[in-house]
């Protein structure tokens, strides 16, 4: 992974001291809240309902065991002993004090971490495939580019006050595990005539108006990445709407300009930006790429796990929670942070320390944050899986539900968030407990349930096979169901089934939806496939009676 040199370290250290003085100026009243708010946001500090929340950047989801230990320490020392891993590969603390945040940032800086630009109207954390560098289906490792984009976007002087937040994602595999078509800019690394480059997708996003991104360039040569991004951002900065917060994302601009006009405007700006010294010199690109070489991984034979190894659910766990590594005899392991009845994506400080230890023992000290609020140990030898599984189960980290119905993505919702209309955590807990049966879950198969507590869609409900949106009607929480969304390379928006269900009825409704699927599915059909084939009508009828 990328290692700081003195330039990088000096930079984050300066950032900490800058924020420390900004906090002092706020406490003394020299800065008003209105002036301070954008400054604390670009250091990751939100105000939630009953406390601040600090969102720490985990660049493209990549974490070392040393960093994980520090994150655990911060949870203990400055927070309430736990933290939450997010859908954008970051980590959130729910109870930091403003006055202690400079110290937290200093702790982070000492392990080459920060909270720069994780909030605010700026370019946010660049996310990528959580299996990058390890996946068997990878064309090229996207992480060097993610790091290059991270540096270019950090404190970019022209783009510090965009119309709204800006999210970039990049993938390098055939399967899109980074939901790039749901981002403001999505990049797909590809090869053309022996050279590497990118397909550039712009204008995806969720929120009130879900939109799938449009390809504005089929192939951008590798060396031109930054100058092209600069052109897109400049067009957005100049022409994105600033009159209405809910119409300020680039997806609205692309729609209002028209895809073709938008593309032409970017391309003509790019003719100018590519003449300036914006693109990274080749030797710097090579220097950065070198950090992402994998540790030495010997080719091994895949062991046969005989009955003698059996711990309850071990085989189910191998089947659901491990994936094919490009080096034979290895697996990529998903640590589920969705224990049934638990809070999706949360981990205690003790669990975080344990995961750091397991990463050292089994995964060369490397951890990833997935897009589904889980953690990944990317380079595990298959023969070590039984021992690893045993250690995980003992710490409630061995739930064999990755990709299954109870691997629910849920935003923090009204329990934490000032923007929310309804709670999402209790609903996710009840669904998981209702389906607490590995045989049943395995039979149902791949089913991505995503819950958002409001239209801001932090739970990505538009991209759920089953999406659930919490709404508020006169102080009563209601839950609407939509079906058929996808965040993968076959990106699609879920379709609303009908009126919402009360909290004590929503789980029954989900059971009904699943029952319809089980009744209608053909061989090998995932839930999503069945929905796409039969449409919403059979589900509507089952839930609401004849349409």
């Amino acid at each position: 992974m990328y290692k700081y040199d003195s330039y990088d370290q000096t930079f984050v250290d300066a950032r900490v001291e800058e924020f420390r003085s900004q906090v002092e100026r706020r406490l003394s009243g020299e800065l008003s809240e209105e002036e301070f708010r954008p400054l604390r946001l670009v250091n990751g500090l939100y105000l939630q309902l009953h406390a601040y929340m600090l969102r720490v950047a985990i660049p493209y989801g990549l974490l070392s065991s040393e960093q994980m230990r520090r994150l655990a320490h911060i949870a203990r020392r400055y927070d309430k002993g736990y933290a939450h891993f997010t859908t954008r590969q970051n980590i959130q603390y729910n109870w930091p004090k403003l006055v202690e945040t400079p110290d937290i940032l200093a702790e982070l800086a000492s392990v080459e971490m920060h909270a720069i630009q994780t909030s605010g109207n700026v370019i946010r954390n660049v996310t990528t495939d959580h299996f990058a560098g390890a996946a068997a289906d990878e064309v090229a490792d996207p992480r060097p580019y993610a790091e290059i984009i991270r540096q270019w976007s950090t404190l970019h002087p022209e783009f510090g006050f965009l119309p709204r937040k800006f999210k970039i994602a990049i993938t390098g595999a055939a399967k899109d595990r980074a939901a790039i078509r749901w981002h403001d800019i999505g990049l797909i690394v590809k090869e053309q005539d022996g050279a590497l480059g990118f397909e550039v997708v712009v204008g995806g996003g969720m929120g009130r108006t879900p939109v799938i991104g449009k390809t504005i360039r089929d192939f951008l040569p590798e060396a031109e990445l930054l100058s092209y991004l600069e052109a897109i951002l400049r067009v957005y900065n100049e022409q994105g709407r600033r009159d209405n917060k809910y119409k300020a994302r680039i997806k609205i601009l692309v729609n209002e300009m028209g895809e073709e006009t938008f593309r032409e405007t970017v391309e003509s700006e790019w003719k100018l930006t590519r003449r300036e010294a914006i693109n990274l010199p080749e030797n710097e690109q090579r220097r950065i790429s070198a950090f992402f070489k994998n540790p030495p991984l010997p080719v091994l034979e895949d062991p046969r796990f005989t009955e003698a190894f059996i711990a309850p659910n071990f085989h189910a766990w191998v089947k659901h929670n491990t994936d094919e590594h490009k080096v034979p005899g290895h697996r990529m392991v998903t640590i589920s942070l969705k224990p049934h009845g638990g809070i999706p994506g949360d981990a205690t400080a003790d669990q975080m320390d344990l995961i750091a230890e397991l990463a050292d023992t089994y995964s060369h000290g490397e951890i990833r944050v997935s897009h589904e609020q889980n953690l990944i140990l990317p380079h595990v030898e298959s023969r070590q899986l039984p021992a690893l599984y045993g250690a995980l189960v003992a710490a409630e980290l061995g739930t064999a539900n990755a990709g299954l119905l109870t691997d629910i993505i849920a935003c923090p919702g009204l329990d934490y968030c000032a923007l929310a209309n309804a709670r999402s955590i209790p609903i996710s807990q009840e669904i998981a407990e209702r389906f607490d049966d590995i045989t049943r879950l395995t039979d149902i198969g791949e089913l991505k349930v995503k819950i958002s507590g409001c239209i801001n869609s932090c739970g990505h409900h538009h991209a759920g096979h089953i999406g659930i949106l919490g709404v508020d009607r006169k102080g009563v929480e209601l839950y609407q169901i939509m079906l058929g969304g996808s965040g993968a390379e076959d990106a699609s928006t879920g379709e609303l089934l009908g009126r919402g269900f009360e909290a004590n009825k929503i789980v029954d409704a989900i059971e009904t939806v699943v029952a319809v699927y089980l009744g209608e599915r053909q061989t090998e059909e995932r839930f999503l496939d069945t929905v796409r084939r039969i449409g919403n009508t059979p589900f509507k009828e089952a839930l609401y009676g004849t349409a």
Partner: protein
Amino acid sequence: MELLNLTTARVANRAIGPNATPLNEISTDSDSPSLGEGGLLVWADSPLESILPHLEKAARVEIHFAAFGDGRGFSLARRIKRDAGFKGEIRASGNLIPDQAVFLARSGFDSILVEEKNVAAFLNMLSVYKGYYQRAADNTASIAEQRQSKVSANG
């Protein structure tokens, strides 16, 4: 008001000069005299096309920020310098906070009009960082370039 020179990081009040002429008050008559020492006053959201015709006659352009969060002013300065090749002074005024000082300097602004009580804060913010990751309008070498020249220097 004081004038902060971003290149020297010093106050330069002798250079404040007369007021700039607002864009919407300029005569479009081609025989009209040059704008005078005060130069041209535009806003963060003024379209570049309406500014370009007057740049030739302007010694200075002042970009006024009605709200500090209106980031269009930064791109406008960049364009005035790059697209129009403007060689005169680009000045920022209006609703600005000290924490924007570096962003202004690196987006092509030469000076900022600030209230006296804020001068120290603006000057402090200019010296926080020793290097930046990306190339911008001010032509300071990026961290990558500094890194590479150090490598070359060390042979």
